[in-house]
């Protein structure tokens, strides 16, 4: 296991380096000139050169990349002040250290993800198992149609509807806001309840469908029939055999979904006016704040790579046929 983790971590570092290079190169390919944008309407060539110099844009691209990369580990000095490691650069648009902005936005995304993940895993997997158990019966049909309906719903449709139903017309729940968990846990939960409900409604549907189909598949496996042939009760066959087999798929998909969600739920954040990583990515894109965009991309990539390693490790624990080496 330890060897696996070391090996995969080294692999992950290589992957992240490649991602960073691609991302870095990409933003020099975008036609927007960051120096020109921050120069303003009346822009003299001297002024532009000055800004370009302060933004490090006058250096060759590989050198800029190298500066950016080393600053992650050792920090860097900007005219605006010192940026301590891990430093992802300085945003001339926000006039802020990028690390600082990321740390400011991440808790919102994290809270949004964790809250809805708990809801959608419990309800999605639960409903899926129930549907598989009652295959072909009314419960199954209702669950299947409802999940098809919910998963074809879009957040920008379900979101405003939920806001109208819970907040504007009834006042049952408070409008979505982010309150720091450590300051006010109840306010934190209350402020995120509506986004959690909407986000998990759609994801629950996916997990219902996935759980149902992998359970149905497992239930028709030969080894499940063997378990029945040796007199195991329906319950033991369902939980000890079929569920064991279905778990691998579900854990894999969940791990990857979690990584993606933690990288920022763009539409959800925009719909509910929450300021997480997804919203930050969109803002930076609109403002051509390319160094910020690189920072967000790196955080998202890191999370996805991290969760992939976790998924592989957990999968090996579930399925003894997988050998980690």
């Amino acid at each position, binding site marked *: 296991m330890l060897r696996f983790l070391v090996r995969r971590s080294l692999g992950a570092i290589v992957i992240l380096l490649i991602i960073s290079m691609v991302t870095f190169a990409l933003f020099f390919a975008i036609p927007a000139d960051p120096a020109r944008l921050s120069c303003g309407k009346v822009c003299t060539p001297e002024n532009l050169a000055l800004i370009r110099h302060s933004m490090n844009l006058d250096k060759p691209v590989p050198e800029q990349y190298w500066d950016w990369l080393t600053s992650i580990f050792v920090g860097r000095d900007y005219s605006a002040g010192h940026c301590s490691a891990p430093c992802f650069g300085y945003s001339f648009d926000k006039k802020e250290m990028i690390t600082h902005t990321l740390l400011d936005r991440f808790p919102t995304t994290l809270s949004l993800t964790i809250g809805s993940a708990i809801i959608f895993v419990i309800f999605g997997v639960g409903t899926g198992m129930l549907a598989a158990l009652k295959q072909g019966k009314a419960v199954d049909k209702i669950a299947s149609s409802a999940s098809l309906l919910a998963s074809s719903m879009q957040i920008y449709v379900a979101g405003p509807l939920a806001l109208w139903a819970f907040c504007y017309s009834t006042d049952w729940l408070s409008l979505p806001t982010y309150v720091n968990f450590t300051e006010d846990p109840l306010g934190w939960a209350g402020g995120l309840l509506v986004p959690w409900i909407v986000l998990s409604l759609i994801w629950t549907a996916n997990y219902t469908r996935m759980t149902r189909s992998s359970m149905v598949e497992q239930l028709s496996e030969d080894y499940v029939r063997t378990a029945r*042939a040796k007199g195991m009760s329906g319950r033991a066959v369902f939980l000890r055999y079929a569920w064991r*087999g279905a778990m691998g798929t579900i854990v894999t998909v969940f791990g990857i979904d979690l990584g993606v969600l933690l990288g920022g739920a763009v539409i959800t954040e925009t719909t509910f006016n929450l300021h997480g990583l997804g919203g930050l990515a969109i803002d930076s894109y609109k403002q051509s704040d390319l160094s910020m965009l690189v920072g967000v991309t790196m955080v998202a990539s890191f999370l996805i790579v991290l969760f992939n390693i976790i998924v592989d490790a957990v999968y090996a624990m579930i399925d003894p046929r997988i050998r980690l080496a």
Partner: protein
Amino acid sequence: MTTQAKPEGATASGGSSSFLSVRDLSVRFSTEDGVVRAVDNLSFELEAGTTLGIVGESGSGKSVTNLAILGLHNPVNTEITGSIKLQGQELVGATNRELEKLRGHTMSMIFQDPLTALSPFHTIGKQIGETFQKHTGASKSEARDRAIEMLTKVGIPQPKTRVDNYPHQFSGGMRQRAMIAMSLVCNPALVIADEPTTALDVTVQAQILDLLKDLQQEMGTAIILITHDLGVVARTAQNVMVMYAGRAVERGTVREVLKKPQHPYTWGLLSSMPSLSGPVDVPLTPVRGTPPSLINLPTGCPFNPRCDHMEQVVGGKCTSERPPLSPQGGHATACHLSSGQKQDIFIDQIQPRLG
């Protein structure tokens, strides 16, 4: 629950007191294309401690019959009629709870492909011990000891360490041995072996069959051996039933059926099998045509489209009337040919080919 796990003796009202008695069994599946008559009016008996070989092509209803005995068909799309009595206890229509108590305990099954039939997620010892725990109420450590004992019995080397292995760490032959150990862990009175050697290579096949035979002698188990390999039947069974399109077409002792077969389909099966002692230059003759669709069976004798001897039956009965399996006991066939005709055809045309 008052159901006895192992009812003593047979006290069936019908008077017949065989160990396993299948009467007029029909199994039908409803599918999108129509009703599949997988087993149609099948009757047979099995005496305690003996082996019955069931032979036939794929789709002849061998496996379906045996899954019906264990009650493993999906009740949603399966209709089972007739009667299956094991030691006097009726199994058709028995509740799941009753069947659960019998499965693995009084009757058990050895499946064809042990790689897919064993759970990849549990150790061999767990899978064997679990059955024992369930039916005897033994503790975990007792079940483990029993699993080691069973693995020793089926000839797994170093059973004390092997008990903690997963199926993928076993070879094909060892997996089938483990499967046998699992099915015999509660000393069942009936074991159904569904093509237990098909997935194995020939040398291992012989070992597995010998093992089954030895264990049968030791424990007095009755065995139903499903196979399409007549050689396997000759080696292990006392009685044979040949199935075609969900029905029995020939039944008798191994000697009778393999040495003096009376049904055109059995002739076909035997002629398509190579024999070491047979003439080298005589080509093998497969049964021509393909098995019929079980949704839309030919009228009359279901074998008539593939039969070479139809013109010898007077009045075209082969296409109009279904031949019953007769006589009632002993060596019986379901064919319109007279017994004299069968005798002559076999001696003149079939026997020379078999050598």
